[in-house]
């Protein structure tokens, strides 16, 4: 048993890594899957919300996109968000929200 321990550790470690990696790879399938995962991982960071909004707007989910961009603007006002992220969100999400308001009925 003792002699087989390193082999067992290695096989077990490899199997766990393979399963985790196999589960993670589909996240990089598309913008939508990537940023949906990113907002789950970092829900209080504005950029993933901006990008998630843009990703779902590309497939026509404008209501969801509007909510995502509003979330980005809301999250960007949190005190720990750096100035440059706030500037980027104001520029991108703000512009997108304005466009949606003028385009959507």
């Amino acid at each position, binding site marked *: 048993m003792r002699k087989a321990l390193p082999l067992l550790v290695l096989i077990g470690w490899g199997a766990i890594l*393979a399963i985790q990696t196999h589960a993670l*790879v589909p996240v990089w399938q*598309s913008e939508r899957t990537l940023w949906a*995962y*990113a907002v789950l*991982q970092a829900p209080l960071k504005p950029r993933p919300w901006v990008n998630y909004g843009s990703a779902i707007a590309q497939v026509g989910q404008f209501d969801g996109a509007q909510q995502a961009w509003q979330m980005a603007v809301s999250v960007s006002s949190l005190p720990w968000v750096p100035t440059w992220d706030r500037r980027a969100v104001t520029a991108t999400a703000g512009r997108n929200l304005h466009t949606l308001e003028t385009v959507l009925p």
Partner: protein
Amino acid sequence: MTRLLGASALVGAFLWCYLPVRSAGWVFEDGITQHYRNRPLTQWTWTVVSTPASSHVVNVGVSLLGAVLLVWLASRLGLSGFGLWTVGIGWLLHPINVETVAYAASRGELMAALGVLVACLSASGKWWRLHHLIGIGLGLGWAMAAKESGVVGLLLVPLVVAYMHRHDPRWTIRVTPALVSLLLLSLGIALNGGVTAVANLGTTDFADARDVSWQFWMLHQATALNHWLGSFVWLRGFSPDIDVDLTPVLFQGCCLVTVYVIAVMGWCVRREAPIVAFGIAWLLVAVAPRFLVQTPQSYLNAHQMAVPIMGVLFVAGGVMMALERWADRPVSVVNS
């Protein structure tokens, strides 16, 4: 025969993991990266391989080639048996490398890693011989033409030389590459406008690196580094955009202290476990430029960890070899 079967199983597992990338599209900065002019080699490859499917296949192929070179380098550094398998398995199957392989824009990072590995392999022998020097030069040139981060090769080559010749009494053999690297790095920094200009290379439309203090940058990068080291162990938190800003300043301070503690630990075990010390040194040296060049809109991310994580794999390989030695030790029987 057993090795061949094991290697086939490993490659099979790797391909099984990355099968979904065949149908993946462009994501995040895949489009922008193709036009970066300061990465001539990678930019040229985008003119040859430019569809999403072929780009992902290239990343898978380059990653496999990287595994071969990394295991080869690990064996030159003294790892053997299960230690080498640990390095190979870690590189090919660890989820920390998913961003590097599945994100097409990481082609530059992967190609730079190949160049760094070739340079280090060439430096791991009698580096003063002409064909070794040519190998080092080609590797470093390849790495820096693939991505700016390939410059870490200039730091890692002297590290490999110092490690491989640590028992050599001739100091010129151990130290000359470090002096040449120091000269080249100083020249490179001077030609790029000095340290401040290099630190500000990451300025973007919204983030001016001049607005970032060194204290802020050190704390945030140290936190990001700790995040990835934690992710390596716990297999959690592999986000394309980690939230470092959310971390309290006190915790960020602890992360910076942890980086120093890791460095001190590496120094302390340099005689008892040289490969562990080397792996820690590799990790810290490979991330060092990321602490100098401030990229405020992007803290250290998973694909930027491609080269530093090799150091962690050397450490893991060393630990696995220690476990193997322990398992092979005869069990002592005490008679009453």
